[in-house]
Structure formats: structure tokens, C-alpha cells
């Protein structure tokens, strides 16, 4: 109990940090659609901030970045088409967050005491207050007047319901019935598009070579080496958990296009027709604006977009060897077999 409390306190101070570090929205940002590059910050002299360049002349996105934020993915009900808080509203919200009095207007993740899954003090020396966050005054990560994921198409609902129904009652039969994250095949925080995870597993290291940008997610050492030489996707019959990503530069923005997903990759219920466009714009020394548009005509009636600020952090990125240390699957299955044996013995008596 004491430990839980301490962890919650630590997490809460991290949130205070978020709010204090929150950036004021830039002029024009409120109207910038997600499909356009986020405007660069202006310096005190009023000149737009320009990114430094790699030796081969591309905008330098390199470094270790974290996407922790308290902004919820979907807009809280009742805010309607309101995309941004006013300064006054934001100040009030910040105060409420400091006091822990927030509803759906802030995604506290692990910091919400009821949702606390991990006791960070167990990591020994892991100090969440040292993590850096970026934020803006958006009411939700999803941009646009609706601010929510478009309603799922009936065929997608059916597809997903069938999948769940098929597994029902068989959850402990085999490793195949366990979630992909438990099997170390695809964990939530390594999936693309990259959605924030409050407090853990949100580090992304970017390294650029001539003609390539490499993204290394700390979670499960998931790596994408993205060619930016204008080549096309790999043949459509080759499907990959993380799809196939190719990129190009549009001005100072890196645009990454991903297709070739498997039917089982399922981002928010999507199918294998998922098409992602991600945009990375470094708009300050310590900030990248990450935007994505998700499109899948077999899942949603229309595409939807989100914008997530990423803040520079020091790292290091640790090695996340999930499969190598996975005792979860064998423990769960062994437990199920023992339970079955015991039940069978009882029946015999």
C-alpha cells in the first residue's frame, strides 16, 4: 500500500512537470490541419526556427525522444468541436491535474492510482520525474472537429467480434490464444502508429544515414530502417506485422508511408488494408511534432489523424529483451493445465 502510494506520488509529480513544460500553442497552430507540417516555433527575434542539418543536408531528427503526454487520444464528451483549450482553461486544467482531480480530459495512464499496474520503485533508480514530456493545448490527440476515431464499419465490427468469439473459452488452451503482446510478437508501445504510453516504454531513438532514417523503439527493440530514396513498397503479397515503410522528405518534414500489414496486426481494430502516413517535423531543438493519418476502407468510413508532440530526452535506450525473458506464457499455460488436472481429479472422486 505504502509502495503504491509512493509510486502514485512520483507519477503525479511527473504530471506536474508535464503541465509546467507545456508549450503555448503557436500562432496558426489552431487552424493547421494534420496533413500539413506543423509550423516551426519562432525564436525570440521572431524568426522561424530552422532545424539543423545532417552532413548530407537533411533536417536532423536524431536523438532520443519520448512521447509521454497527458492529452487523451479521443476528445472528452461535452467539448464538441473544441480543438484547443484557451490559456485560462488550460491553466485551470493544469491546476486540477496537480490536484489529481481530472476526468477524461487527461490521460494519466499509470499515474491514475486505480489504474496503477507497475510499482516504479521496484525498478530501483528509475526516476520518472526525470523523464521529459512535451505537450500542447490540444483537447485530444486526434485532430479535427470530431476528435474521435470514426465509427467502425459493420463489417469490421463483425470481423473483430468473430475473432473475440473464436477465442472465447479457449483463452488458456495454447500460446496461440494469448495476446500478441504476451507472446512478445507485437507489444502496444512498439506498434505503429506510435501512440503515447504514459510513463513507460515511450522512448524512440532516431539515427539517420544517407538515404535512410532508422527508428528504434525501446520496447522490444523494434526497429524500422526506412529508405527515403523514393523506392516503392515491397510486393503486396509480403505481409509484415509492422507493415512496410518507405519515406520521403517534403520540405523539412519526413513523410513515412506504410502498407503491407498482416490481418493480425490490428491497430484499433484495423484490417490488413491499413494504410498509414506518418509525418515527423522537428519544430524546436527539443521537440518533434509527430502526426499520423490512419486509413482503412475495410474498418472506418473515413481516415482519421492525430498529432503527438515528442520531447527530447537523454536516454539511454535500454535493451528490451521480451521473448528471451518470457516466462509468462509457460506460467499461464502450466497453471491452466494444473487447474484442469485438479478439476479432473475432483470429478473422479
Amino acid at each position: 500500500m505504502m509502495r503504491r502510494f509512493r509510486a502514485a506520488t512520483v507519477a503525479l509529480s511527473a504530471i506536474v512537470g508535464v503541465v509546467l513544460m507545456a508549450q503555448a500553442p503557436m500562432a496558426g497552430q489552431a487552424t493547421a490541419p494534420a496533413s500539413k507540417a506543423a509550423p516551426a516555433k519562432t525564436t525570440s527575434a521572431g524568426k522561424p526556427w530552422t532545424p539543423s542539418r545532417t552532413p548530407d543536408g537533411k533536417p536532423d531528427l536524431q536523438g532520443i525522444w519520448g512521447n509521454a503526454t497527458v492529452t487523451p487520444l479521443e476528445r472528452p464528451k461535452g467539448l464538441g468541436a473544441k480543438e484547443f483549450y484557451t490559456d485560462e482553461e488550460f491553466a485551470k486544467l493544469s491546476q486540477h491535474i496537480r490536484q489529481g482531480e481530472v476526468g477524461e480530459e487527461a490521460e494519466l495512464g499509470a499515474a491514475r492510482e486505480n489504474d496503477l499496474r507497475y510499482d516504479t520503485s521496484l525498478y530501483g533508480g528509475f526516476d520518472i520525474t526525470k523523464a521529459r514530456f512535451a505537450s500542447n493545448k490540444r483537447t485530444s490527440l486526434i485532430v479535427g472537429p470530431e476528435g474521435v476515431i470514426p465509427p467502425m464499419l459493420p463489417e469490421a465490427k463483425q470481423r473483430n467480434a468473430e475473432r473475440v468469439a473464436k477465442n472465447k473459452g479457449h483463452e488458456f488452451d495454447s500460446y496461440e490464444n494469448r495476446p500478441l503482446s504476451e507472446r512478445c510478437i507485437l507489444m502496444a508501445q512498439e506498434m505503429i502508429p506510435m501512440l503515447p504510453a504514459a510513463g513507460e516504454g515511450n522512448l524512440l531513438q532516431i539515427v539517420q544515414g544517407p538515404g535512410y532514417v532508422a527508428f528504434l523503439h525501446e520496447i522490444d527493440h523494434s526497429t524500422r530502417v526506412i529508405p527515403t530514396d523514393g523506392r516503392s513498397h515491397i510486393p503486396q503479397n509480403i505481409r509484415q506485422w509492422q507493415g512496410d515503410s518507405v519515406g520521403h522528405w517534403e520540405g523539412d518534414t519526413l513523410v513515412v508511408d506504410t502498407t503491407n500489414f498482416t490481418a493480425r496486426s490490428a491497430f484499433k481494430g484495423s484490417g490488413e488494408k491499413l494504410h498509414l502516413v506518418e509525418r515527423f517535423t522537428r519544430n524546436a531543438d527539443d521537440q518533434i511534432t509527430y502526426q499520423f493519418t490512419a486509413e482503412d476502407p475495410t474498418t472506418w468510413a473515413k481516415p482519421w489523424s492525430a498529432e503527438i508532440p515528442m520531447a527530447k530526452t537523454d536516454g539511454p535506450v535500454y535493451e528490451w529483451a521480451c521473448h528471451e525473458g518470457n516466462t509468462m506464457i509457460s506460467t499461464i499455460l502450466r497453471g491452466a493445465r494444473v487447474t484442469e488436472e485438479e478439476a479432473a481429479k475432483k470429478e473422479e472422486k
Partner: protein
Amino acid sequence: MENWLKGSMMAGVAVVCALLLTASPSPAQTPAYRAPRTADGKPDLNGIWQALNTADWDLEGHAAAMGPVASLGAVFAKPPGLGVVEGDEIPYLPAMAAKKKENQANWTKLDPEVKCFLPGVPRAAYLPYPFQIVQSRDKILISYEYAGAVRTINMGAPTKAPADSWMGWSNGHWEGETLVIDVTDQNDNTWFDRSGNFHSDALHVVERYTPRSADTLNYEATIEDSKVFSRPWKISMPLYRRVEKNARILEYKCPEFAEELLYGPLRKKPSN
């Protein structure tokens, strides 16, 4: 007596050979090839590379042999190879040579590659899968196809590992044409090959990547581990560029290929 005489004569020949070798300049001293430069003036190692040998089967020289699964016949038999160890033999401490033999006898049960575990260094370099070097000034990222393994090499002032890991901690620097990477803090769970060659957590590897032509690198790794070997030893081999225009590192997330092996016995038995 006769044997002794033969032995000392052979030793004498060896000394003469060694002298001759010492007299001729080593390739590292007078590089025959100068690699194209990156925009910041370093030898350009960017690209997708792959070893073309049987080192992952056995670092030491070996004859062809039957594979572990009879039903796979010639498809997964062990191909022959001359070996990549300088001096041909890995200098195990006597007790450790026995452990190597035991590993080899229980290969498929114990080899971390069979289980899709991260491969460690140097094995990652000569697994039969390509890897890509993404070379920047301060960091060099190496993305391996096998198991999606990855390393980030720090090219700045050397830093200390925060913890032991499967892929170790890599600090690099340039020595003329050569990228030298000092790899420490690997755990003792990885192997060198499918023949049970192994190490402890005292492993220290120094890798050297030297361009030898537009499409080949020379790869050397000096291996030091006083708990397992009587002296440092070295492997060397060429690495070849994957010159296909559309060459890519594809996804090889192998945990799912090892699940039946690891968890199969814990499946629910079909009820009769």
C-alpha cells in the same frame, strides 16, 4: 625421441614462417583500398551486408555432416567449411573444452538461436541473415534481420553500460579506414555458433570493420574471456554487400517460430 625431434623441427619451421609473416607489412598498415567518404569525411560503411560462409554452423573448420532432423534430409544438413578462427583452434581452458562438447552434444536443446533469442556479438555479424549499417557521425545503428536484433554504437566519448544485455554495450571509434567497436557487458546466455562454442559474462569483443573493396568489408573480432579461454583469439572473414537494387532488411520476428518448441508441451490436450 624421434617424435621429439620431429616436433622441434616443426616448431622451427613455424618460427621461420612467423618471422616471414612479421616481416611483410600487414594489410592494416598499408591499406590497399580507400573507401568512399561520408559527408563528414569518414569511410562510408552504409549498406546492407552479409557473411557468406559457414561460421554460424561452426567457427572452426568442419566437414559436412547430417542435420539434426532426419526428415529434412539434405535441406538442413551441416555444410562444410574451412573455419574462420585464426590458428584454426579456439583456445579453451581444459574444463571449458568439456562444456563446449556438452553444448555441442545438446545443440538443438541449448542453442539460443534455436529459441530465437538475441544473438550477441560477434555471432550477429555472421548469422545467415543480412544486416544494415546506418552510419551517422555520433551514432552508428546496426539493424540485424535475425530476431530484429539491433545495436546503437556510440561514436562519442566512451560510455559505460547501464546493465548487462544480450547485445552488449558498444563504443566505437575510427582507426584510419577501420571502424573499431569495443563491445562489453554481454550476458552469458549467447553462443558463438551452432556447435556449442560459448563464453562467459567476462566476454570482451573488439570488432574491426575495414572496407576492402566497394562491395566487401573485412570483419575481424578479437575475443577475450579469461574465464573460458587461455588467451585472446581472433576470427576474420569478408562481409559482402547485398547489391540488389531493392535489397531490404525484412521482418524476421521469430518468437512465433519457436513457440511450439518452447510451449508446445503445455498446450491443452484434445479431450477424447
